[in-house]
């Protein structure tokens, strides 16, 4: 009787293990997020535009994504979000929200589908050249770097003319402005 019980137990364990194996294989692989600091990621993913019409910006974001060959997956105009995928490999979510008066901020986040799970894109050049440059061309507006320190304050954009965050500095000297380090120098492209 006891022997029978132990056999039963062994069988139960074996079956549980088998089931567990099935379970594990079905679980989706977790997203691989960037190891870069949050502030750096936010800066490369965010641009401001001198325009108050949030819906127009959202529409332009959608048009830009379609022009780049993305297929639209989800749109939520009240929340200002759009998610699109290109060739089943690259997916991009953009969030459009107003900031202060007369300004709209766009934040984009891209993920690449890899065998090891969806991996976040953390290359500033990708966001600049593959998203914000075409977007600012479509909007006929310059994409402005958003100053990270005072995210909540209105007017925290770094104007491409002055280039530097320290706007208090006298701009009398004729030296060309230097963009913040870590970002492509070609930011602020407009027509």
């Amino acid at each position, binding site marked *: 009787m006891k022997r029978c019980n132990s056999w039963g137990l062994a069988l139960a364990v074996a079956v549980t293990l088998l089931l567990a194996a099935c379970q594990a294989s079905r679980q989706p692989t977790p997203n691989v997020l960037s190891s870069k600091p949050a502030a750096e990621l936010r800066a490369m993913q965010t641009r401001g535009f001198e325009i108050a019409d949030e819906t127009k910006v959202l529409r332009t974001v959608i048009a830009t994504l379609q022009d780049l060959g993305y297929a639209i997956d989800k*749109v939520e105009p009240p929340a200002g979000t759009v998610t699109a995928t290109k*060739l089943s490999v*690259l997916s991009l979510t953009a969030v459009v929200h107003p900031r202060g008066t007369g300004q709209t901020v766009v934040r984009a986040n891209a993920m690449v589908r890899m065998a090891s799970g969806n991996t976040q894109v953390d290359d500033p050049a990708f966001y600049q050249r593959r998203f914000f440059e075409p977007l600012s061309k479509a909007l006929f507006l310059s994409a402005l770097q958003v100053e990270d320190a005072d995210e909540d304050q209105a007017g925290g954009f770094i104007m491409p003319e002055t280039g530097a965050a320290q706007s208090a500095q006298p701009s009398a000297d004729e030296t060309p402005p230097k963009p913040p380090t870590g970002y492509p120098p070609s930011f602020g492209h407009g027509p």
Partner: protein
Amino acid sequence: MLREIFHCEAPIRRSAEAERVPGRVAIKAAVTSVALSGLLALTACQSPNEIAMKVGAPPDSAAKLRAVETRRYDTLDEPALLTAAAQTLQDLGFTISESSSEVGVLAASKQRDAEEAGQIAAQVGITLVALLFGVAYHPVWDKDQNITVSVVTTPIENSGQVEVRASFDRQIRDSDGRVRPELIDDPEIYQQFFAKLSSAVLLEDHPL
């Protein structure tokens, strides 16, 4: 070269050609498989950022594609156009997966068979030739496809017109279960869609 390969895989052309010169198709299919496996191998050793940079690049012929995908209608009724587009897509067998009239967006998809007699015959041909030379060859052919479409409407300022842009793309699954995505740039498919849409809204469409 890649474009050419992708292009010759369009269902109609492939099967028509297969009837005429099966040998040529067999060679083309072999070249395709080699090119595709090469692409896959390249993708494998790239970092996510490199893949994003490459995949995220605008399509080669962005301006041409835009012209193929876009029509203008003399109306100000954007929601009506969107409704007509939804009905047109349903007529074509698509399932609507997302719609938002506030920003003029419509997304839909459908599953279709991708098997073509020509391609399968070519693969069998290669297998037999390989067998003759004592080489093992595993035949692969397209099995089914998932077609997705994004329709975006945009009112054109001060012109009394609404622009409609439809982009079709598809993910083809082969007999080994591998998925190959591609943008559809065949003008005929777009002409058919816009012809149906025009008759649904009783309006004439204008190219860009």
